[in-house]
């Protein structure tokens, strides 16, 4: 029975019923031939006719399956009952209808079918017999009744198998369950869906299993590039790139790989372990050890990471979906401001222009001009808000390009001299993280533009994935009390928290304010790297001066 496939179709069910009928008829026929009895052959012919009729009725769907099965039981009982006196062996066929009924209508069908057979056979035979003969017959009939019940239960069980939900809905069930969990977790934000946190758990587990000295989790981003998500050492492994031989081997073979590398501490073994969800590669853990790791150890670690990997994948997908949804919403908002309030304020501006033109009094004209200037400023702000909402980090151009574009457009309109300094390595952060950093930069620059009264703005960004720092400083009149807990600052803090970065807002030496963002996803083994360490990158600093604004 174990060979019966789990998805049993209705056709399969009909075939089993036909098989049972053929078996029943043949068994009775063989017995009839042994007895060489004419009435026996007649009974067999009648049973065969019934079997053919039932099969045809099922195939043509003339009646419901249950109804056919029960009619079959009744008619079979009539045939068997009327021949029982001379030919006890025809009772064998009584096994067939309960089986068929079980297939079509489950245990209830079997029970009704058996009961029907017993009643019909009893009614046809009992009146003709004496009490002694009856009990003798019952003895003969009992095993057959039991066999019928047994075959019926078998049919019902097969039917049960047929109703096991197919695999597709299994997938939906688990997807629904996961989404439910996701909703719960998403409400408490980044608690369980923080990719960096999960990556750190992977690093901890890896360290416990193979005792590495340094490790990094790389994840695949759109475009097939691996980016570092988290590392648990002072940066020695941060230069592990997509073209590292051990990474490439692991990526292409989808199996753990090892190689011996020379390092500052002598010969080391670099291990790359694939992070897979099913057959899909989502990333790689690269670890450096003092000694080789056995294949068995790697295999154990690989399987113990599978749950973390699934969670990591879910978290990354969730992050991506959230970023996409947010971007959609921002675009919608930009359209709404563009088509609504901005046009209305602009048209009020035109109306004031008309009032200025029509006015005779010079005083009135002056106050109307002041109003017009205010309206112009307001429309400019709305235009910049639309620009803010529409600026995005592009997958191809890189974060530096997006920041440069933004700073140029917005900074130079403000009357501040903007000093932009970028320091990026070829590796990139995840777009989701870059997007949050850009939003923080936008908010900080907007604050400086609106409130600081500064003449200089310094925007500094350094990235050495998974680390990054952003600093926005001005030489304006510093932090006012109302600014420190403003809505804008709260949003900046929330954004920083979402990517696991720390945000500091303080007065700048020599006047003004400074907003510093530090992204340093480290595990507990090493303390967070300080700003200086990240700023002191291999590359020379490139200062791009944007010149004085001309307004």
């Amino acid at each position, binding site marked *: 029975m174990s060979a019966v496939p789990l998805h049993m179709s209705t056709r399969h069910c009909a075939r089993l019923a036909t098989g049972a009928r053929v078996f029943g008829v043949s068994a009775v026929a063989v017995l009839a031939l042994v007895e060489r009895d004419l009435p026996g052959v007649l009974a067999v012919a009648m049973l065969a006719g019934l079997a053919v009729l039932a099969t045809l009725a099922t195939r043509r769907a003339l009646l419901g399956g249950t109804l056919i099965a029960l009619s079959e039981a009744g008619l079979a009982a009539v045939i068997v009952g009327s021949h029982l006196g001379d030919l006890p062996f025809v009772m064998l066929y009584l096994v067939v209808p309960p089986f068929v009924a079980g297939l079509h209508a489950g245990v209830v069908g079997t029970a009704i079918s058996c009961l029907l057979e017993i009643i019909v056979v009893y009614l046809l035979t009992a009146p003709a017999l004496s009490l002694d003969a009856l009990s003798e017959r019952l003895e003969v009939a009992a095993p057959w009744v039991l066999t019928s019940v047994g075959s019926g239960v078998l049919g019902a069980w097969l039917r049960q198998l047929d109703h096991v939900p197919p695999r597709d809905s299994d997938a939906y069930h688990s997807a629904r369950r996961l989404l439910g969990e996701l909703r719960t977790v998403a409400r408490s934000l980044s608690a369980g869906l923080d990719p960096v946190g999960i990556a750190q758990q992977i690093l901890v587990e890896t360290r416990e299993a193979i005792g590495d000295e340094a490790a990094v989790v790389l994840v695949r981003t759109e475009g097939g590039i691996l980016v570092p998500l988290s590392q648990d050492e002072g940066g020695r492994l941060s230069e592990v790139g997509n073209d590292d031989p051990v990474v490439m081997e692991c990526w292409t073979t989808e199996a753990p790989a090892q190689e011996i590398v020379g390092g500052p501490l002598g010969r080391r073994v670099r291990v790359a372990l694939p992070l897979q969800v099913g057959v899909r590669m989502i990333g790689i853990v690269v670890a450096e050890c003092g000694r080789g790791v056995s294949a068995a150890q790697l295999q154990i670690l690989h399987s113990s990471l599978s749950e973390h990997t699934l969670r990591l994948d879910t978290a990354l997908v969730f992050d991506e979906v959230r970023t996409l949804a947010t971007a959609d919403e921002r675009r919608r908002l930009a359209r709404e401001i563009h088509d609504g309030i901005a046009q209305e304020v*602009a048209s009020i*501006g035109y109306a004031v222009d008309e009032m200025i033109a029509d006015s005779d009094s010079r005083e009135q004209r002056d106050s109307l001009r002041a109003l017009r200037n205010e309206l112009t400023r307001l429309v400019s702000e709305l235009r910049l808000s639309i620009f803010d909402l529409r600026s995005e980090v592009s997958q191809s151009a890189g974060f*530096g390009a997006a920041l440069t574009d933004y700073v140029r457009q917005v900074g130079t309109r403000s009357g501040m001299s903007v000093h932009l300094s970028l320091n990026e390595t070829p590796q990139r952060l995840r777009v989701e993280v870059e997007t949050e950093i850009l939003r923080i930069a936008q908010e900080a620059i907007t604050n400086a533009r609106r409130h600081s009264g500064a003449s200089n703005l310094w925007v500094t960004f350094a990235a050495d994935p998974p680390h990054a720092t952003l600093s926005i400083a001005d030489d304006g009149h510093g932090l006012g009390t109302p600014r420190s807990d403003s809505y804008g600052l709260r949003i900046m803090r929330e954004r920083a928290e979402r990517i696991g970065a720390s945000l500091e807002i303080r007065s700048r030496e020599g006047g003004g304010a400074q907003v510093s963002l530090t992204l340093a996803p480290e595990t507990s083994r090493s303390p967070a790297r300080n700003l200086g360490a990240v700023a002191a990158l291999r590359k020379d600093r490139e200062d791009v001066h944007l010149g004085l604004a001309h307004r």
Partner: protein
Amino acid sequence: MSTSVLLIDDHDLIRQGLSRAFERSPDFNVVGQAGTLAEGERMVHGMAPEVVVIDVRLPDGSGLDATRRLRDRNADMGIVVLTMYAGDEQLFAALEAGASAFVPKDAPSEDVVAAARHAAVSPRSFTAADLADAMRRRMQPSGPQLSPREKEVLNLLAEGLGVSAIARRLFISESTAKTHISKIYDKLGAGNRAQAIMSAIRAGLIREVSITA
């Protein structure tokens, strides 16, 4: 004789404000107003106005695309592009589409009239209040800057040529080629060829390259 003007903008109040501004100047005559591109273009063909004032974003399409179509049909029509968007992108797009002037919507209506006056006189030139700043911003380098020679070497690197092949192709010695390559790596902050190509693509120094994993 007054100059005929057609206004295309989907916001009634904007059209109204602008139309009153044009009426205040005796040298202009607003001959029509449209709220959609389809209507606007039909009116342009029917009325042949001397100046068209058109918004960048209209319900049935882009005013910049319409500008391009209008310019293709008529080289001497003044086209003033209006926009609520900030950013140089729109300004340069208007310039490239063949507009005669570009005015943001925060500017007073007199600016629009002045731009239309300019457009009527010299439709094939281009004027915008922010033009000089925008040009300056555009010319500023944003990423790493390579010398022309380094760009040549970079392109050959991207084609997959080795050091000696590059040297042969550019008629320079291998050591010179190596120097160029290491300078490129330095400027791009790259440690190897693949990283250099990747950051060059990102900085827009090379357009496209097929990378095999």
